[in-house]
């Protein structure tokens, strides 16, 4: 898959001698919805952190849209077109829904201190454009205007997750990384999430990579699935191929403390 949007090759990461990722090869094609699954502690979130620049792998290469990502600091990775959400919703506390989403526009806008102090016309136009774009993102994820000025962390949990996705969309990404977006959602909200993920790809043309424990959701929404176990990629394929892969079944069921969530 040489035309991949995101390409990881031979990525290895260790903390103080403990191997977290070993020689991981992984691709996300342009316009794809791809899932990364695996037992707890397999290294899924670490892989996200490598992609987004928070962890620096000891070896390997990560390229995205023609850029070499490994040299970049996290804010440059975001500027290059990768946005993410967090496993435990991490909205800015004490700030409103709108202010939260506006953070995403930072790397797409320019105005500095002088423009703000003088209230230059360009600065005011930019502020209005930021608000407009963020309203669009909030509307897209289904958060209404009555919630814009509420403190984000006082919203119902399902809505906080949506606000977090809107904030990621405001960075105008080409690839969206969702870290367990369905965690804590009820059955109805999960269906809404599946529809939202599809719309993100179909209407906005954003590729999606998700980490998820809810295998039902994973099977429904993703075209390709990769399985990570003990820091190594053990399988890659379509939902059908993954379901019948003996290595995957062993990874999930063959361990004593198995969180045997893979309900085939």
């Amino acid at each position, binding site marked *: 898959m040489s035309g991949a949007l995101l390409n990881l090759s031979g990525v290895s990461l260790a903390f103080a001698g403990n191997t977290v990722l070993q020689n991981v090869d992984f691709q996300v094609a342009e316009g794809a919805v791809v899932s990364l699954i695996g037992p707890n502690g397999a290294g899924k979130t670490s892989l996200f952190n490598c992609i*987004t620049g*928070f962890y620096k792998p000891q070896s390997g290469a990560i390229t995205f849209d023609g850029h070499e990502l490994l040299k970049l*600091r*996290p*804010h440059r990775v*975001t*500027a290059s077109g990768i*946005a*993410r959400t*967090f496993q435990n919703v*991490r909205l*800015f*506390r*004490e*700030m409103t829904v709108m*202010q939260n989403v*506006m*953070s*995403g*526009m*930072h*790397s*797409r*806008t320019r*105005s*500095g*201190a002088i*423009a*703000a*102090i003088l*209230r230059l016309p360009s*600065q005011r136009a*930019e*502020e209005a454009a*930021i608000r407009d774009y963020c309203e669009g993102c909030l509307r897209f994820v289904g958060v209404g205007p009555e919630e814009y000025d509420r*403190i984000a962390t006082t919203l119902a949990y399902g809505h906080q997750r949506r606000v977090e996705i809107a*904030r990621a969309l405001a*960075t105008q990404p080409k690839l969206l990384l969702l870290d367990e977006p369905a965690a804590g959602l009820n059955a109805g909200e999960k269906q809404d999430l599946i529809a939202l993920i599809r719309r993100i790809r179909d209407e906005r043309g954003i590729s999606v990579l998700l980490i998820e424990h809810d295998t039902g959701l994973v099977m429904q929404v993703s075209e390709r699935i990769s399985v990570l176990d003990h820091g190594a990629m053990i399988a890659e394929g379509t939902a059908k191929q993954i379901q019948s892969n003996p290595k995957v079944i062993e990874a999930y069921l063959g361990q004593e403390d198995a969180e045997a969530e893979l309900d085939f």
Partner: protein
Amino acid sequence: MTPRDTASDRLRDRIAARFESPALRWGGIGLILVLMAVLPAALGQYATVIMTNALLYVVLALGLNVVVGFAGLLDLGYAAFFAVGAYTIGILTLDFGVNFWLALPVAVLAAAIAGVIIGGPTLRLRSDYLAIVTLGFGEIVRFSARNLAITGKASGLSGIGQPWLFGWHIATPTDFYFVFCALAILAVVVSLRLENSRLGRAWLYVRHDEDVAEAMGINRVAVKLAAYVTGAIFAAIGGAFFAANLGAISPESFSFTQSVLILMAVILGGMGKIPGVILGAFIVILGPELLRNLGELRLMVFAVMLLLIMLFRPSGIWPKRGVRS
């Protein structure tokens, strides 16, 4: 939190809500401006001098509020930038005969450069280290001022001239009172505009969660440096007019106590909240004055009051809405 506090919070919110109607807000602003204008005539020279000092503290506290309140960086050596502003004016006007108004931008530039030199390497560190480095920087600046010939060693500089502005010789305490009124208003306007801007929001994001801010595309080091330099510029402007007002400066005007007093004004009023910080600055300066008839006990009484305020209102007298302990 006691029920009484919640009631006072509600009252404050109601008052604040009233001021959201534009007519009342402009009326309130007009009233404050009128009070500021008649104060010297109404209260006499002593009160005018005290108020001038309080207004200087408003400028300094609003500057430090950008660093501590907005960006969440603990700065224990803020008086150093105040010193850089004052000494730059002193040296340039006395030794080089430069006009005050030409020396002012140099003072601002000097403080900005000092901010970059100290902030550049240290803002990569987490907050606790920054506190130690800034504490050290504050002391280094004071000791340098006390030992260098150009800063007049321990006795400092004296005979700094009073500036002219379009034919107005800013000379009497009342003149300086009005100059500091203008500076305080300017500081408030600049603070408000920065707070509601792309950069102001970025400071809050970084303060609340550095990692998430970075994941949202914000360059955390650059944003913190901008806060640090902005704070330094506020202090330098305050220091420049402070030097012109007193005509004499000495290293002891820029001690660690000075940094702590400014920090206290910020924390006391409510970090990050502009009206709170203004209130804090007035309390820090006017508090000891109002308690003057208690004689020797006044500083102790003042200290106990501060402790009680912090005990019962840990996020300040007038904190940000929704930021209650």
